[in-house]
Every structure is written in C-alpha cells, then in structure tokens.
C-alpha cells in the first residue's frame, strides 16, 4: 500500500498526543500529577496541539477536505467515521480540563473530565487501528494485533512525552519511569510477534481464486490492461524491497524499542533525566514514523492478484 505522508504524520502525531493525554488524565484522576496547574496545562496544550496537527494533516490526503464534516455521519458502519466522532467528542472533556487549569478553577468535576479524556483518547486510537484492522483485503492489516499495536505505541510514545515533560519541568517520578519501560516493552513485544505472524502467513488468496477458475490450471498474466500504472497499481501495488524492509525493521527496533528503553534506564540510574529522555523522544520519533511507513509499505492488497501477484 502506498504510504501517504499525511496519514503517517496523522497517526503518529495524534497517536502520541492521545497517549500523552491519556497518561496526563490518568495521573490527574488519581491525584498523582506532580507540579502545579501550569505544568498540567502545558502538557495538555502539547497533547491537544499534536492531536490537532495530526487531524488537520489527515485531511490533506482527501480529494475534498472542505467536505470533511460529512465524515461524521456514518458512525454506524464506518470505523473512519467513528474515529472522527470519537476525536471530536474527546475534545470536549480535554478542552474543559485545559480551561480549568488555565483559569485555575477548582472543581470536583476535574477527575470525571480526566477519566472521560482518557477514555476518549483510548477509544479514538482504537478506532484508528480498526480502520486498518477491519480491511480484509490486506492480510497484514486485518490482523487482531493491529489495533492493539496502535494502542500500544500511542501509549508508549505518549508515556515517553509525559516523562520527558515531567523531567524537564519538575522531576521524573519512579512510576513514570516504569510506565515508559512497561509500555515500550509491551508495544515492542506485540510488534515483533506481529511481524513473526505475518511473515509466516503466505496469504490465503491466489491469482487463480481471484480469476475464479482454479480448475483451468495455473494462470499467468499475458497482456496487461494498460501500459502504465493506474490508480489501483500506484495506491495498492506499492511495495518495498525485501532487504530494505528488513533494514527498516531493524531501524524501528533500535529507535522505537531499544533506544527508549536503554535511555530511560540511563535516566533512572545516572540522572540527567531531561537529556536522556530528550534523546529517547527523538529516537522514538524517528522510530514511530519508520514503523508506520513500513506498516503501509509492507501491506499487500488482494487486488494485486490481477496485476501479477501470485498470493495475497
């Protein structure tokens, strides 16, 4: 599948933003948030900025961004529509929480708003994952781990941003350090297990099944319907060379999984938390974009059976 940069930026930026919002909201709800209201406000402002930039960028790949409001209509059947609805609904408690911190409004409502923000963030990221997870045309996407990996990396990158914000503004509490380590390891284990499973699956559909005539023997393409690639080939036929993919998977493992774990351990053991976590944020940023790019580039679409693929 063709990796659209606007969608890669959207899913990574808003994923990290929702992860940050999730952990901030949980910390607020249980009363574990260190620092004053200004720190909470600054963190929620960063989270909402990342989310909003991501959502805006997601409209860039649309043919008619000005009609995007219509995408909220079909939440009964469409995960894309559900994602839009969940994203907008999450703004309500998160925005109110931000306003309460900005204007120093003390209220018992804040923990309820925080819980609603956390739930909204999780639901929105799950919907994003299910947009891909529900497409049976792509075996690398219609895998039960896909929405969980979206949630896992949103939680891990969000926890890292959360820890970094605390480290540079106040100090890094031990529970936040553990949060970064646990979420990163969990997401990494899921992703590596996912890679193993999709690599072992050759695909259940064959070219002969696509043509509907397996009894006629093996089929091979003779004359193509067009001399140059069309939309279907460009959008659905994008593929990355096997050896490139392997290098990029290694890069993902190093930057998104290894580096944040090692750097967080360094922060825990020898101090200078702000510096180590800044490096971890940069590494994870490179890693999550690579991971998301590969998620598209390695995805094989069933329609390519008509264009020469033998299995999908």
């Amino acid at each position: 599948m063709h990796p659209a940069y606007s969608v890669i930026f959207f899913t990574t930026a808003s994923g990290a933003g929702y992860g940050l919002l999730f952990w901030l909201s949980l910390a607020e709800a249980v009363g574990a948030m260190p620092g004053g209201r200004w720190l909470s406000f600054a963190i929620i402002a960063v989270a909402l900025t990342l989310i909003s930039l991501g959502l805006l960028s997601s409209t860039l790949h649309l043919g008619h961004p000005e009609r995007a409001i219509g995408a909220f209509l079909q939440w009964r059947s469409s995960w894309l529509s559900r994602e839009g609805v969940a994203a907008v609904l999450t703004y309500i408690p998160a925005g109110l929480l931000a306003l309460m911190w900005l204007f120093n409004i003390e209220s018992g409502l804040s923990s309820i708003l925080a819980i609603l923000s956390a739930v909204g963030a999780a639901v929105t990221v799950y919907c994003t994952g299910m947009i891909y997870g529900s497409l049976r045309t792509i075996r690398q996407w219609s895998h039960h781990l896909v929405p969980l990996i979206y949630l896992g990396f949103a939680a891990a990158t969000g926890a890292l941003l959360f820890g970094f914000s605390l480290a540079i503004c106040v100090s890094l509490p031990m529970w936040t350090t553990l949060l970064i380590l646990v979420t990163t390891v969990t997401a990494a284990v899921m992703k590596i297990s996912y890679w193993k499973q999709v690599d072992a699956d050759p695909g259940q559909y064959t070219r002969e099944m696509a043509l509907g005539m397996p009894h006629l023997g093996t089929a091979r393409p003779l004359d193509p319907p067009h001399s140059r690639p069309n939309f279907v080939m460009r959008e659905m036929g994008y593929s990355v060379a096997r050896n490139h993919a392997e290098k990029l998977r290694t890069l993902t493992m190093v930057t998104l999984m290894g580096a944040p774990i090692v750097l967080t351990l360094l922060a825990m053991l020898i101090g200078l938390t702000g510096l180590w976590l800044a490096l971890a944020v940069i590494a994870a940023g490179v890693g999550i974009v690579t991971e998301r790019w590969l998620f598209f580039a390695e995805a094989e679409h069933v329609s390519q059976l008509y264009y020469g693929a033998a299995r999908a």
Partner: protein
Amino acid sequence: MTTLPQSTGKKLGLVIDLDICVGCQSCATSCKEWNTGGYSAPLSDHDPYGGDPSGAWLNRIHSYEFDDGQQAKTVHFPRSCLHCEEPDCVTVCPTGASYKREEDGIVLVNPDTCIGCKLCSWACPYGAREYDYDDGVMKKCTLCVDRIYNETIPEEDRVPACVRSCPTGARAFGDLDDPTSDVSKSVIARGGFNLLDEFGYKPTNKYLPPRKAEVPAAPVERQPEQVAAPGNTAIEKLFSWVDKALS
C-alpha cells in the same frame, strides 16, 4: 446511508462470457467514452498522449494464459465493479457517498458528497474503484445507470455501454435475481461463477467459463532445427556475392 440494504428489489448486473471475449477493448473504450460525459463525468486523464499516460477507467481488460500441464489457453478477462451484495466498499465510507441502491442493487458513489478518502478502494478486493485525481472523488462502474433507465435514448441503447458495444456478444446485462431472465439462465446453463467467492462479498456480476476444447490440440513434437550450411546452392552463392558487393 452506508449500511447495506436488507435486500434489493432487483439484482442488476453483468454476465461476462470468457469463452467468446476476444479482448478487443471495445467495452473499455465505450465505457470511458460514455462515462466521461455521463454520471461519472469527468473521467480525468493525465498525460494521455505522453510517455506516462494514466487516467480513471471503470473497466479494465486483462489477458491471462492458463496452463493445466497439457494445454495452454488464452483467456481475456474484463474486470469492473461486480455490484456485490455485501461489499465493505459501502460500509467503510464515512460520509455515505458510497451506497448500494435498494431498488436495483447498483453500487454508486455520490460525487457531490464523496470526500476522496479512498478507503472504499482499499476495501475492494477486485481493484474496481479508481480515484480521479483531478475531480478529487472516487469513480466506479455505475452499470450505466444514466442509460438503462433513460427514456430519451432508443430502447436498444438502454443497456450499459460496454454491453452495447461488445462485437462478440460476450457481455450481457439483466436481473440476476430473476431466475427467468436470460442472464440467470445463461449462468445456470454454463456454470457461471463468482470472482474470489471465498472473500464473501457475494458479487452480482457473473463470469461464464471458457468451454472445454472438444478435440484437444495434439502436442506438436519438436523436431531438431535443421539449419542449412550457407553457401551450398548456386542461388545462395549468388546472394552471398550480392551481399558482399553491396556492403
């Protein structure tokens, strides 16, 4: 609404006879011609006369060779929207622009509400939807909805453009829900089948398989090629001399 209708009044669709399709592309070109001025207008092209031509087409004609180990066979294979009964291309649409008509089962895209997110094309295993980069909306076969009910054109033209133009009669249009229709009868008589039935979208369009050859072509025994040594005969000597003299 992008939820699917419980049932449709008719199941209008195409039956494509792979036994007599000659791969002439007339269905593809007449489709393009009609639809670039009809419901789906425009079907934009990019660099149509240059080195990298591309554009939105609603019908694509492949050719494949099938080989069962004894005999190889060329099959020309038109591919377009199959107007499935339970397709995800409709349910994934966030706006309701992609919909299946309750009255006749035709799957359409409303060009006025489509936001061009391309998700429906991702959901189609048949690669039947093509995005129009200039128009910013998804294009697909409409079953010539602007011809089949059109009372301003002669009655014989009230079929999809591809069916009307097919010189061999390999394409037929009708109600596949009506067991007495010609298309339904041909599906039963010839063992009509679905593409990628295993996927479960329940296509309406059916394909008729190539007939089995009555007399299998006898395999030609390969003879070792006999190449005459040059310059043996008088005429070859003459040609050889002419060749040298002229070069």
